[in-house]
């Protein structure tokens, strides 16, 4: 067992059922997340992903709750205080943005944590810049587009400088470059402050590039987990028409694997590594043709 210090989040046999629901949203889920780990969560709608995120922030919804949840050493239960060392970005930014202007919205969190006003004033442009909203301080929040609201919601979380960042589909409304920039910000935060990240995301290519480990949830349980290169080989969960999307590079390599054209050890879910594998395959076949000629 790892020393307790290394565990950021420990969940044991967590069951949760919404009032009037006919089945558990979380059905006895157990999970450990290490300090500094980047954990990706994927799975179909209704799997319990968002409910898990709420519980990890200490925002246990009304309903039947059992099991144990500990976040940064703090025990979470129905009605317990929310976890200050973690920040949650909700799936729908509209439920999170409350300020009339962008600057007000961004200041709300740190003000409530009693940060120094001078620090807050200095931090606002820094965090807006990180989410490509530089110069938007005085813009009314209702004027922002869907993607801009989502980026503001992300900045709202980042400015809290949390130890644990919980992101529930944070980039669903962002354009591809916006997604990339957001993931770069995350990468930098991890390097500079070894922040722990839990991210629900359907964008498999980004998850594969960033996550140390990805878990797949279905019906309130973890049905598989592992490093992306291992997880995205699962033929039951991926690579068929009803499946969740896997990184496209992994889908190509999986088909080559199935056709006996790629050794199993060469499988990867990463773009750059995948290109190298394909390059090697093609160069070898060119050579073997040349030798025969």
């Amino acid at each position, binding site marked *: 067992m790892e020393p307790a210090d290394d565990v950021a989040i420990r969940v044991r046999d967590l069951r949760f059922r919404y009032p009037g629901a006919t089945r558990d949203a979380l059905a006895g889920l157990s999970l450990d997340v290490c300090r500094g780990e980047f954990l990706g969560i994927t*799975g*179909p*709608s*209704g799997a319990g992903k968002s409910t898990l995120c709420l519980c990890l922030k200490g925002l246990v919804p009304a309903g039947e709750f059992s099991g144990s949840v500990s976040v940064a050493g703090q025990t979470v239960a129905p009605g317990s205080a929310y976890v200050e060392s973690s920040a949650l970005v909700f*799936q*729908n930014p*509209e439920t999170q943005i409350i300020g009339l202007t962008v600057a007000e919205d961004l200041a709300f969190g740190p003000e409530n944590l009693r940060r120094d006003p001078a620090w807050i004033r200095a931090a606002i442009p820094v965090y807006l810049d990180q989410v490509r909203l530089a110069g938007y301080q005085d813009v009314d929040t209702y004027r922002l*587009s*869907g*993607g*801009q609201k989502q*980026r503001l919601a992300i900045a709202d979380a980042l400015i809290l400088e949390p130890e644990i960042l919980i992101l529930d*589909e944070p980039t*669903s*409304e*962002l*354009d*591809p*470059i*916006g997604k990339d920039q957001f993931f770069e910000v995350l990468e930098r935060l991890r390097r500079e402050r070894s922040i722990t990240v839990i991210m629900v995301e*359907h964008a498999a*290519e980004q998850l594969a590039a960033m996550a140390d480990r990805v878990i797949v949830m279905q019906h309130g349980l973890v049905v598989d987990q592992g490093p992306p290169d291992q997880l995205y080989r699962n033929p039951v969960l991926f690579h068929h*028409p*009803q*499946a*969740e*999307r896997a*990184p*496209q*590079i992994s*889908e*190509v390599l999986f*088909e*080559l694997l199935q*056709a006996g*054209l790629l050794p199993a050890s060469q499988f990867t879910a990463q*773009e750059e590594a*995948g*290109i190298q594998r*394909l*390059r090697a*395959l*093609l*160069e*070898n*076949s*060119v050579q*073997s*043709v040349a030798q*025969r000629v």
Partner: protein
Amino acid sequence: MSESAAALDITDLVFRYASGVADVLRGVNLRIDHGEFVALIGQNGAGKTTLAKHFNGLLKPSSGSVRVMGRDTRAAPVADLARAVGYVYQNPDHQIFAQRVRAEAAFGPRNLGLSPSEVEQRVERALALVGLREHADDFAFSLGRGQRQKLAVASVLAMEPRILVVDEPTTGLDQAGARGILDLLSTWNVEGRTIVVITHDMTLVAERIPRTVVVNDGLILADGPTRHVLTDASLLRKAYLRPPQVTRVAQRLGDLGVAPDVLTVAELYRQIAARMGPS
């Protein structure tokens, strides 16, 4: 409105919000014919949604013109435009207001002045199409996000518009949900309806939508067959977009003979397997 005219014909469209300082649309020219299936892509804030809101007269041009099936949107009654063009919002919660699923889907056709039996038929058909028939009597807001998205689509489908505009139909949906919505739109397109989809999902565009229009900074940056547009990395970069992963991978392997205009996983697999064949 005329069946012989283009579904949408947009000429020199300039638009500025009343309170705005800058033009959001700066001279857009675009023609979409009946039965086309078109993707509208572009970075956040490029003007995609503002442009799409001109398609059903929600917004009117500051200058230039928008013609829907030949009728200028500034002259056409809103009721006529609503009949011709269905619009599904980005966020289903901006659209859904009825308590029950069935009532939500019935609102549109009822307001078209259809008979109760016709309304009922259309509601049944629309809910069946999106797979919500068994939820017809549920509370609309007790549905999950994906189901609310489908309900928003069903409510518009029930009006059976000739032209359907769908803003980010797959946001927040899992893969099965996204595929379901796309299957639905494809079916409607095959039946002859014109479909315009606003999306950030390049994979979806590559796999399913034949024509792509890139909106950038209030202008049309590119417009053409998806295979041309989505494989032009330098063009897409200008619009803060990029080709799907398989296309990027194929283009990195160009020196080994892989075609640079690959759009899908199946195409890249065939390219690779074909080159390995002789060994």
